């Protein structure tokens, strides 16, 4: 069963294949998550989200999934995502 009480934030790019796989997996698992497609953000808003992402992943790579502000999963890692969220 998916744990719906966890706070799940996905930093992604709208054009990225691995980000798409991550989004599909989260939907499949019926996880509620907040998603930022950073390439679609502009100006200050993009900067703000990038600063936020930097705290979890200094390399600023995508996808980066953050669970409860603590667990950080960089790249598409199906096993890890399932382990943490189901």
């Amino acid at each position: 069963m998916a744990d719906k009480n966890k706070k799940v934030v996905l930093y992604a790019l709208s054009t990225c294949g691995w980000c798409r796989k991550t989004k599909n997996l989260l939907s499949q698992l019926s996880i509620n998550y907040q998603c930022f497609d950073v390439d679609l953000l502009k100006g200050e808003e993009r900067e703000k989200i990038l600063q936020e992402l930097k705290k979890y992943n200094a390399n600023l790579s995508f996808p980066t999934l953050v669970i409860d502000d603590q667990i950080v999963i960089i790249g598409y890692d199906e096993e890890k995502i399932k382990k943490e969220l189901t």
Partner: protein
Amino acid sequence: MIDKSLIDYWYEKLKKEAEESGYFLNPDEEFTKSLIEGLLINQERFGYFACPCRLASGNKEEDLDIICPCDYRDQDINDYGNCYCGLYVSYDVYTGKKQIKSIPERRNLKKKKREITISTLKLSLPVWRCKICGYLCAREEPPEICPICKAKKERFERFI
């Protein structure tokens, strides 16, 4: 939205070009076409094929190393079996012997540049290296287009 026929056109074109020069496109056609769609979106946004899985700055100078095929493709295919976004794969992945996976970003990792000191060597011409495929040539300037992988002049570096 990118027209489906344009994606199909680029899919066939890139597949043919890859195979002619010893590279392989990811055999997962749906995934590959989604990446090509990303490339075409970036082409519309920036005027060049910035990697769909990296955040491009929009400044061509800064983004040169991540214009597809990126400077990191060959090393990533060697080390992992696929490039960062998964568009290009190794022969083992192409033939289904190995699976593609999401790999670490090597772009921003600070690494020492390999330097060769050849103090006694006197060359009559500089040697230029294509950062995409490694092609070397000794001439006054790099070629307009790499004869091996068709990368543009701007992707060459002075090697010796």
